[in-house]
């Protein structure tokens, strides 16, 4: 009998669905979205690139002149790069709407500003 009552109650109340993309849920703390590199802090050690499980990070050059290329279409947002960086130069942002029609556009480059 309880299930009938529950079913009737649900029938007449507002559904739990979040009507994405017209409504969006708030993203919780610690959410792992797209990682972002702070090139002022990066020392070019290459640990993020080596530790990435899907090979989504490429480092061009070494040391303080190194530049980073991040392939978002390969990234699995595990956060291992941010975890390994000795200087916390990588932050996992809350961005998750990253889909695109072209894989070529899903590449983020981080260069040094002189």
């Amino acid at each position, binding site marked *: 009998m309880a299930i009938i009552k529950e079913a009737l109650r649900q029938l007449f109340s507002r559904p739990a669905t979040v009507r994405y993309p017209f409504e969006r849920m708030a993203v919780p703390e610690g959410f792992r979205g797209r990682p972002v590199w702070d090139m002022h802090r990066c*020392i070019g*050690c*290459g*640990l993020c690139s080596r530790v990435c499980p899907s090979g989504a990070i490429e480092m061009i050059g070494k*040391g303080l002149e*190194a530049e980073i290329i991040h392939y978002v279409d390969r990234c699995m947002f595990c956060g291992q790069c941010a975890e390994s960086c*000795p*200087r*916390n130069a990588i932050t996992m942002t809350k961005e998750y709407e990253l889909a695109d029609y072209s894989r070529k556009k899903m590449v983020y480059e981080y260069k040094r500003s002189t």
Partner: protein
Amino acid sequence: MKVSRELIAYNDLKKLVIEPGFCILCGACEAACPVHALKIEHDELHYLFDCSNHVEFCPICYDVCPFTEALLLETLGFVTDAPNRRESIGYYRKIVLAQARDEKLRELSHSGGVVAALLLHGIKTDFIDSAVVSESEEEAPIRLRPSISLVPDDLLSAVDCKYFPSAVAKAFGKAVHEYGKLEIAFVGTPCHVRAIRKLEAWEHKIINSLKIVIGLICLWSFSYPELTKFLRENHNIEADDIKRIDLDRKYRILTKDNREIAISPSEVRDHTLNSCRMCQDFTAELADISVGGAHPLTDWSIVIIRTEEGERLFNDAVKAGVLNVKSIEEEPEVYRHFVEMAILKRQYAIEEVERRKRNNEPIPPAFMRTTELLPREESLLSMLKAEQIMTRDVMTISPEATVEEILSIMTKHHHMGYPLVNEKNELVGIVTFEDVSKVPASKRAETLAKEIAHKKLITVNPEASAMEVYEKMSKHKIGRILVVDKEDPKKLLGIITKTDILHILRWPMKRKR
């Protein structure tokens, strides 16, 4: 000075610090290594695997080691917002004498018990959630090992003075990685403190968990095998017999059967750790709070508060009634002894560096530069004139003042030298701390300033360049120079100290925590 650096810092570290024997096993490199390639075990630093297979470029272990020249300027930035600086004391806000109100703590620590009291108060009020300290090993009470104190009871085992190396920076890394602590108090000797500040200047991610740094006033650390050998051969004491070691003017070694042996520092100087011989930092100049013994008082400690964070913890502890505080002006002998030890350590250090330079022996990169200037610094000083950098409001003393009075003025204002100016406003001499120190305590009330002062003065004109000032100070090995009128050398215009020069040279280092 190193000109080019290798891609993998360990190669440089090995060549310049580890092989010449300058490593004090603090463990900062182990805590900071992002691939965990270094490990301190069995009194030695082990390189576990070739880290060049795991990183393209990594400067960390070299930069973070307290004995390399990297980041030294930046580490100073953590204390430079303090208003005062003296050559022997470093940057500071206040010097006081303090003791723990709890008698048990004072007893356990054989002095004021201030560090333990501060840490206990910190843990109880959630100012910190853990402390990294050194505690004695049970089997050999004089040997140390680092420990992470999580609850008040842990701290009670970590009191007392330290004379041997302890891998506290490694324990700090462990507290962050394995214990996940977020507000850690770090207690260590000046080199440990320097290592932690270098980590902070490097902006390493484990530093996010550091809350406060308490430095311990340190003369030297000993090499355990060498000191015990010396004691066995020269004084017939076995390492296992030693109950405790104290330091006032001499090292006092207390054995388990209550024999006490006094040894002067100069006797044991050769058995200290290599790097300690060249270290000029007596008071842990980069800590938030520095604490040390207050000889001749046995249950008070001298406390130097340097930063805002240190001040907050200390005032909080005083307000909560955990500490008793006394002004240092009440105990001029304490201040005198303290400064004397600092000067002694610095003297020994400079001597050793000069000696090694003459004999072409290795020197830690951090200590290589004593008085030489970089070209940038030279040009900077050449641009300024003496009258631009001098202090015009000079604290002077009458030639008729007694040595006792001079000592109490020194204890109050902490300056190390005062020009003597007579009633006619003429400059007649200068009296320094060394002169005052030489007078035995019994004769201080009777001896007058003019008796001990230097009459032959080293002065500069106001138009002289700062470069000239610096050269004169270095040549004559003095800490301050008087600026007098060109026409009338007896007319005192101002005074320039080493601190003033330092401020000019180090202006790019200002940074906030």
